[in-house]
């Protein structure tokens, strides 16, 4: 009899069930989408924050002081120590290599630029633009196009394996360079593939493939510094501690967390005779921005959950209140309060499960769509979310029905059957 009661109730009152079901489905869909977005937003925004550029810099350990004002190096360029270009792919061998978005070596050289019969000294920076490298079987591409996304080129990006160069915007203007002209550096003619605009000191410089700068300097394989762009975890009490003072367990936890400090430490391990340092302007601020945005989405998600819970409750209360006559009839026929409540709770459970499944699927699609349209990447739905969402759906539906069911059961059947209320 009990299953039949529930079954018939669904079959005969399709409209009412549909209304309550729609409310539950919508509530669950929004909750799923919001939770999925909120759990993934940290990762997504972290990647967006990489558009601020590298957050780590690796320099030779025994480096002399930089004497540099406004991007102009006043130190003899062959002075000081260098890193070895051949060591760079080892960055992909560090513990957190999945978090390393990209890296760019830099080698500044002062070269004479001959133009219209006059000669002037300009800085030429050798780097990777979009270089194919491999570490073991791991093939990857890295360079300034990844680590310095605000660099804009009017023309083409040079190929890392050829000798085309980029001319800084202000330098191009100063020497009255016109498209398709070559430039003469230290007696050699170079093809200019484009004009570079960065808003930084590179606007007054020439940027070339690393090999060109190494040739100019006469030091094959030399690299002055490496900029590394890594996804990091916001700093906390553990991150700022000195690894030398840690106990082994704490050290392991520190080493295996993607703090900017521990990534710097691992970079130092990977590249011989190097010193890795966080670029505080980028590294310190992204932590705050990231935690603010994550916190905001968490609170918005809480508000959304609350709203959908109340909406589901209201819909359930309405659905039950409409059926006082039915309850009166059941009670007049001798059903106890317990049985009547059980029928309604069973219905609520069925509604919650059906609405929950449909809502979860709809919410996942929604989250997917949000990820695609805003971040141009997938928002991953954790499978563990499904049981959590279902539990929330059942709980909220029950909680929403409970008060209405109690009131309806207490109601004198005579009144409800008479039709007055």
């Amino acid at each position, binding site marked *: 009899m009990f299953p039949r009661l529930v079954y018939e109730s669904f079959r005969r009152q399709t409209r*009412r069930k549909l209304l309550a079901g729609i409310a539950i489905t919508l509530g669950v869909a929004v909750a799923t989408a919001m939770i999925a977005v909120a759990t993934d937003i940290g990762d997504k925004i972290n990647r967006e924050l990489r558009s601020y550029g590298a957050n780590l810099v690796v320099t030779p350990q025994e480096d002399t002081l930089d004497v540099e004002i*406004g991007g102009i190096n006043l130190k003899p360029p062959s002075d000081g120590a260098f890193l070895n270009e051949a060591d760079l792919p080892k960055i992909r061998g560090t513990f957190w290599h999945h978090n390393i978005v990209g890296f760019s070596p830099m080698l500044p050289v002062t070269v004479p630029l001959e133009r219209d019969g006059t000669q002037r000294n300009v800085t030429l920076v050798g780097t990777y633009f979009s270089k194919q490298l491999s570490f073991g079987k791991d093939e990857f591409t890295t360079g300034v196009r990844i680590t310095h996304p605000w660099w804009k080129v009017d023309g083409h990006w040079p190929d890392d394996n050829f000798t085309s160069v980029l001319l800084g915007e202000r330098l191009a203007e100063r020497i009255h360079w016109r498209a398709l002209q070559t430039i003469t550096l230290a007696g050699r003619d170079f093809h200019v593939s484009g004009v570079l605009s960065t808003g930084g000191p590179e606007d007054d410089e020439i940027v070339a493939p690393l090999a060109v700068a190494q040739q100019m300097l006469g030091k094959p394989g030399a690299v002055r510094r490496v900029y590394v762009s890594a996804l990091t975890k916001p700093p906390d009490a553990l991150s700022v501690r000195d690894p030398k003072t840690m106990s082994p367990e704490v050290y392991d936890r520190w080493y295996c967390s993607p703090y900017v400090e521990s990534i710097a430490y691992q970079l130092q391990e990977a590249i011989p005779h190097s010193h890795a340092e966080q670029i505080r302007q980028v590294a310190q601020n992204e932590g705050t921005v990231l935690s603010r945005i994550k916190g905001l989405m968490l609170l918005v998600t809480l508000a*959304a959950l609350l709203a959908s819970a109340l909406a589901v409750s209201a819909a359930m209360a309405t659905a039950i209140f409409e059926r006082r006559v039915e309850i009166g009839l059941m009670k007049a026929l001798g059903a106890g309060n317990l049985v009547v409540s059980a029928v309604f709770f069973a219905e609520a459970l069925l509604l919650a499960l059906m609405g929950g499944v449909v809502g979860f699927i709809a919410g996942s699609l929604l989250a997917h769509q949000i990820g695609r349209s805003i971040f141009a990447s997938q928002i991953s739905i954790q499978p563990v979310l499904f049981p959590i969402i279902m539990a929330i759906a059942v709980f909220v539906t029950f909680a929403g029905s409970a008060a209405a069911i109690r009131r309806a059961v207490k109601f004198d059947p005579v009144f409800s059957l008479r039709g007055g209320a």
Partner: protein
Amino acid sequence: MSTAPTALRTAKEVAERRAQAPHTSMFVRMLIRAAMLRRGRAASALLAMVVAAAVATAMMNLYVDVQAKLRSEFRNYGANVVIVGKSGQSLAPDAVTKIESALGPKTLAVPFAYAVARTKDGQSVVVVGTDFARARQLNHWWNVTHWPDAAGNSGQTLVGMRAAAVATPEHQAFDLTFQGKAIHLVPTGLLQTGAAEDSRIYLDQREFENWTGVAPTTIEVAVSGTADEVQQGMKQLAVALPEADIRPVRQIMEGEANVLNKTRATLYASATLVVLTSALCVLATLIGWVFDRRRDFAIMKALGASEGLVNGFFAAEAAALGVVGAILGFFIGIGVAAWIGRANFHAPVVPRFSVFPYVLAGSIAVALISAVLPIGLLRRVQPAIILRGE
């Protein structure tokens, strides 16, 4: 027989009192009684309305305010505009005051002057003259062991980590020479940034100028506001300082625009979703409510009420519900937004009363739709059938 006149008088009195009493129209009475008699149902409809209005208010408030809040967080990245003298010339001494008067007091401008000095053992090191108080405000990320105080400027310096290893490895007072002129300096604090600043020594601008005679060549400016406001600010700066080059710091501006746009889009999507869901749930609840009252509808029609009156009655009821729900929800929503602002940004979200008309209009519209939809369906049904109980 003494009771009759009393009763008569009483009846008369009642009639008089009724005549004198403010004339409550049948329409208003019906509205009030309908809400009073079915308190539970009316309350649950109202609750749905209030929740929807509150969520909508909170979302709109946040959407507007969070961008301003995040922008001020992004200003911690430092200057977004750099001013340099054209072709390397130094800037006018009153440039900083000019900048701040052109852009208002919220703008932070920090002058920098550079020179290359030599240490005792002949090593070159870059020395920078600046305003410590301003630099401290602008560059939050500078990791400084101890800032020099603004007042006492007797050779106090900030020494970059790497410069310290060369100039003052023991953190003792040290001497620098610039074109034969020597100066005696004290390392007040150590500076660490991970960038070029680590190889430099910072001292107070006035002292620097007395020593080297070099005036500031660069001013870093943090212009607050939207991208358009920053562009506008740069134009104003170009007018105020015609002898200087105004350059945007693209790294900072583009990074900020990128992150802000993504956050705004996410917030917008979430807000739309949540508001839409609340609206649809209100719709579902109210439709149920109106359907449930088809007997009232039938009785009114059976008693001869015109179509217009019945429609008007339900519409007025819905509108009243929408107005009350919007007002209650608006204040709750402002509270929620303020709480989120305080919890996340440690600054309350300013209540924006400008969103109230939207919330009100939206609430009334949703309420009206949910009243009109079922009535349209019921109109085709004969009152007798409804009253019979089918």
